[in-house]
Structures are given as structure tokens and as C-alpha cells.
């Protein structure tokens, strides 16, 4: 008895040794910057005292100032509008394409591969493309004029700039969603569909009662990954609109960068980054809970 106990104790110790490198890695690579960011966001570090010192602890004043600032509230709203709109469109269109390309027809493989091109292009290039496509005399307005519609000044108006940015992001996000959802579809055994067909289920019933329930895990993963990926968007806006006009396409990522690196309000920039982190953290917790619940089921 005693022997087996010490065996298990040794095994536990060994297990901790295996965890240690990952733990140290997380501590330094993730923990340190995060804690430093929290520290910065609670002080008043700016261009005047970054290197000279003299910055003081001001508690949550930066956060209070941020939420009292109309621009920040707009930026926060933009971030959610951008993320939710992108998720809705890229998920539904991505799912539809996944179902379509899951059908085995000739050329379905190569066409699926081609669709991935937009996902493989670096975001900065996508941003430049978007800037050209949506300029006043760009491709979109040119095509619209062919069917007799005078297109809006996409990137100049505060009401349309966000739409243009969302379209460009979906262009990248749709193939990404499609790819992940197809791999989810391939995990469903064809036998299930076959027996359902024999029982007389039509395609709507098969979709609602077989595909959706069995895809729940993949769908949640895709939505969560999509949320995290979209919520921290930066490069697309930075290149395509620089957050403008008038902050209409500014999101938390670009706003934090602007505060820290253009205006040297380091503490304020950190506070924005913390808000970004907090939002993602909540979503992450939610996702973990769902995963645990699924495992229990």
C-alpha cells in the first residue's frame, strides 16, 4: 500500500515537471506583459514621464476617463458592430458554402482550394485592395454604375466606411469558416444520413436534426475563434481607413495603438488594451464552460 502511494506521488511530481516548461513559458511570455499592462493602465505614464519617471498611481481614473469619452464609447460600439456583423455574415455564408462544397461534384475540390486564396493573402494586402476597390472611382462603384446606380463615397462617409471594412473582412473570413465547417461535416458518419433517409426524413429535417446537433461542437469553435480573431482586428482598418473618417472604423486595437504610439498616452493605451482583453477573457470563459458542459453531456 505504502509502496503504491509513493509511486503515485512520484508520478504526480513527474507530471508537474512536464507541466513546468509550459508554465514558465506562459508566465514570462503571457503573464509578464499582461501584468505590466495592468500596472501601466493604473498609472499616468505619458510622453512627459515615460523615461524621466514621476508617474503616479491613479487607480481606475484612466478607465473612468475612457468610459466618459464619447470617442472611446464609439470605438467600443464599432468593435462590437464589426465583430458581430462579420460573424453573422462569414458564418452563414461560410456554412452555406461548406454544405455546398461538401457535396462531391467534379471540381468541388479545386474550387474550394481557390476560395482559400483570399484567406491566404496577408491582411495588409487585403487592406490595400479594399482601399482601391472602395475608392470613389473604384471597382465597386464602377460595377454599380454599370447597372445605373451611383455608388456612395464608401470610405469617405462615416455611415458607409464600416460596411466596406466589414465586406473586406468577410471576404477573408468566409473561406476560413468554410474550411473549419467542412472538416466538421466530414466527421459526421454518412450512415446516419442514410438511415434517416430510409426513415423518410427530408433534407430540412436531416439538416435540423442531424447536421446541426452533430456540428454543435465545430460550430461553437468556429464562432468563438471567429469572435476572438475578429474582435482584435487591427491591420485591416489600419491600412484601409486608418480608423477614419472621424473614428467611424476605429476599433479597440487601432485606438489603443493610436493612443500609445501616436499620442504617447501609454497608460491610456494600456487601459484600452485591458478593455479589449477583458472582453475576450469573458468570451473565453464562456467558451470553456461550454466545452466542459459538452464533455459532461
Amino acid at each position, binding site marked *: 500500500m505504502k509502496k503504491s502511494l509513493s509511486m503515485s506521488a512520484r508520478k504526480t511530481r513527474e507530471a508537474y515537471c512536464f507541466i513546468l516548461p509550459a508554465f514558465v513559458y506562459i508566465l514570462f511570455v503571457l503573464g509578464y506583459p499582461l501584468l505590466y499592462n495592468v500596472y501601466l493602465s493604473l498609472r499616468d505614464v505619458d*510622453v*512627459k514621464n*515615460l523615461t524621466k519617471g514621476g508617474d503616479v498611481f491613479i487607480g481606475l481614473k484612466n478607465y473612468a476617463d475612457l468610459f466618459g469619452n464619447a470617442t472611446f464609447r464609439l470605438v467600443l460600439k464599432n468593435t462590437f458592430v464589426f465583430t458581430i456583423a462579420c460573424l453573422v455574415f462569414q458564418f452563414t455564408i461560410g456554412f452555406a458554402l461548406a454544405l455546398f462544397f461538401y457535396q462531391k461534384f467534379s471540381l468541388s475540390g479545386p474550387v474550394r482550394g481557390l476560395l482559400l486564396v483570399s484567406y491566404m493573402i496577408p491582411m495588409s494586402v487585403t487592406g490595400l485592395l479594399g482601399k482601391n476597390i472602395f475608392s470613389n472611382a473604384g471597382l465597386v462603384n464602377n460595377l454599380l454604375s454599370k447597372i445605373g446606380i451611383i455608388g456612395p463615397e464608401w470610405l469617405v462617409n462615416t455611415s458607409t466606411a464600416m460596411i466596406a471594412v466589414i465586406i473586406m473582412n468577410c471576404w477573408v473570413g468566409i473561406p476560413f469558416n468554410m474550411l473549419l465547417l467542412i472538416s466538421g461535416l466530414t466527421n459526421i458518419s454518412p450512415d446516419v444520413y442514410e438511415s434517416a433517409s430510409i426513415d423518410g426524413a427530408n433534407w430540412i429535417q436531416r439538416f435540423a436534426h442531424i447536421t446541426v446537433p452533430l456540428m454543435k461542437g465545430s460550430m461553437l469553435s468556429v464562432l468563438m475563434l471567429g469572435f476572438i480573431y475578429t474582435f482584435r482586428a487591427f491591420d485591416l482598418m489600419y491600412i484601409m481607413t*486608418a480608423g477614419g*473618417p*472621424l473614428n467611424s472604423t476605429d476599433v479597440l486595437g487601432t485606438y489603443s495603438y493610436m493612443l500609445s*504610439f501616436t*499620442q*504617447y498616452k501609454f497608460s491610456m493605451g494600456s487601459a484600452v488594451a485591458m478593455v479589449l482583453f477583458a472582453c475576450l477573457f469573458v468570451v473565453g470563459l464562456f467558451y470553456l464552460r461550454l466545452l466542459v458542459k459538452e464533455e459532461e453531456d
Partner: protein
Amino acid sequence: MKKRLLVAGAAVMAMMAASMTANAEPTEVTLWHYFDASADKEAIVEWVDEYNSIQDDIHITSTYVSRTELMNQYTVGALSGELPDIGMVDSPDMASYISLGVFEDITDQLEEWGELDQFYPGPLTSCKDPDGRIYGLPQNTNCLALACNMDLLEAAGYDHMPASLDEFKEMVAATTNPDDGVYGFAMCCISTEEGTFQLLPWLRSASGGEGVNVDNLTAESAVNGLTVLGDFVSNGYMSKECVNWTQSDAFNQFAAGKAAFAEVGTWHLAMTDAINGAFNYDFCLLPTGDEGTSTSTIGGENFGVCSGAADVDACVDFLEWMCSKEKEAEWAVVAGKIPTRQDSEAEYTYETDGFDVFVEEMNYAQARGPHAEWPSISEAIYTAAQSVFVDGTAPADALAAAMEKITPIVEETPLP
């Protein structure tokens, strides 16, 4: 034993000799710049090679880093200490980097040099902190003037360039031709420092009396200036896309014949090949106010020695060589800029009349700041203009909103 001693002695001698040669090796020095036009990009490499060949104290390696990336490197380097030895910086940004501790105080070395009084006060001030200590030298300077498409002016019935704001308004309206896609005026109002650079002449104009600085933008003359630009946009005389245009985009509109007038920088004189004889053009002072007055903004790049540089004195020697009387004149011609020294005489070989206009305009050109929080002031200014152009906000309200941001900044640390 004796033999062994001899060998050991020889070895010691050889090591000493080797270390002496090592001492004679020039110190390796890095220089970061963001010159990206073909002329100045090549010139900086040639100049560094030339300097490396005429002295043995330092060996400079020049590296191109894009402007935005270079700015980020300075900000990060302020904390981490990873900075080049010599660095280039846009003049309005210098005050912030001095405050961040990016540059060495080289006042003593420069005073010993004894040529500081030759530099124009505007560009030199941008290298100073509020106490008057100097952290670099202005390497080139420039300002803004008006480029005019003389063919379009003639077609609209004018045989001269505008001399006052009122005349300019009239001409911009007359030269606009939507059927041909020609706008009267093109300028850059992008949401970066470039936008502020081009907006300031209109906001600080001397119309109906005295001009004002950015700590008093609710003054009548500033509101009037922004109203004129806002009316250009709302009447369709200027494209609303100016809020996304960089200065080179605005110049390209002019060069393509899509704008009768454009607000252009001195450096564009080195790029007039783009027009390629398609139309007659000329330059005049920016007509920002009453007849006989003009306002412009000083631009230009400074070079400083970064904190922790390998050999500060030798790096200062390089700056002094680079900004010497002869070299200043040479650079101005190569890069299409204006020398920062009164004793440098640039002998331009192209667009000589154009350069005359810009040199005269320098008399009316005003500095931005210097102020450590200039980027925040700048943001308030371009945001005000964009809200007028994009959202149709009343200019007086937009500038009042800008002043709400600017006033606390200048109350804490006043503008010089």
C-alpha cells in the same frame, strides 16, 4: 628557457599589436532614415560612403526604416534602449522624442562648433527642448505653396494666379468642371500629421488682420479659413476624398490635370516630371488671407544622436558635416528641399522659378510647436476639419471642440 621567454614575449607583442590595430578600427555606427524618394534615398547612401572614406573615427551603416516603423522603434527604444546611433525624425515629432529621452543633449558640442547662428530659427527651434537645450540639427526644410494649372485658369478667363483668399475662392469655383471630373482645388486632409501640416496655413491665415496660433483656433480668422475649405467641399469644388488623401495623392490629382490648384510641398518640385508637359503650370504663395499676406507651414527633417550612442562626439561630427554650408546647399538641390542655413546657397538646376516662390514662402512659414504633446494637438486639428468635410459640422463648432482638447494641453505647457 630563454627561448621560451622569447616566444612568450613575441606572443605578448603580437597581442598588443593586434589590440592596437583593433583600437584603430573605426567605431561601428548605425544611422536610420526614412528617405524614400529615389533622389534622397540614393543620396544618403552616397553621403554616408563619402563620410566613411574621409575620416577614421566612425564607420556609418545607413538603414532605411519606413517612417511609421521608425517612429514606433523610437517609442519602444525609449524604454528598451535599442536605438540607432544616429536617427532621422520629422521636425514636429522631435519635441516628443526629446521628452521621451530618445536623443542626446548635444548643446555643448554644437556650441563649440560655432555655426549654430547660421541656421534659420524656425527649423533649429524644432531641435530644442523648452529649456533651449539642443538635441539635433535640422537637415532640410520645406514649406507649402500653391500649384496652379495655368491652362485651366486661362480657360476660366484668368491670366494670373490668385493673390488673396477672396480671389482664390472665385477662381476655384470658376475652374471646377464636374463634366471633365476636374475639381478647383486639391489638398490633403488625411487623419495624420500630413493633414494638419496642410490645414494649418488656412487656420493660421492673416485674414482681416492678424493670424493666430493653434492655441486660439476659435478666432474669426481661423473659423473663416476652415469655412472656406468646408464650402469648397460642400459646393463640390474639392473632392471629399481629400480626407483620405496623402500629400502625394493630392499632388497626383494636380499632375493628372484633375485639379486646377493644389497645395504642394517644396519636394514636389523634384517630381514635376509626372506632369510631362501635359499642361502649363506655375507656383505662387498660398493665398490664405488678405492680398499681400500668406501663411504656410514649416516642414523638414532633423537628425539627432540617439541616447546611448557608441561615440556621441564622433556622431555629432557627422551631423556637423552633413549640415555644413556646402552640404546643405547640395542636399537641397538633390532632394528638392530648402537649406536650413542662411549661408547656404542652393543652385537649383530645375524649376528655378518654383524654388524662388518656395524660398519666399519660407518667410511666411510657421513652425508646428515645438511641443511634446503636438500629436494630440494635431489630432484635434485634423479631426475638426474632417468633421466639417465629412459630417457637415459648422466650422465654428468644430474648432470649439478642437479647442476643448487643445486648451488643457497648452495651459499645462504653453506653446513657445
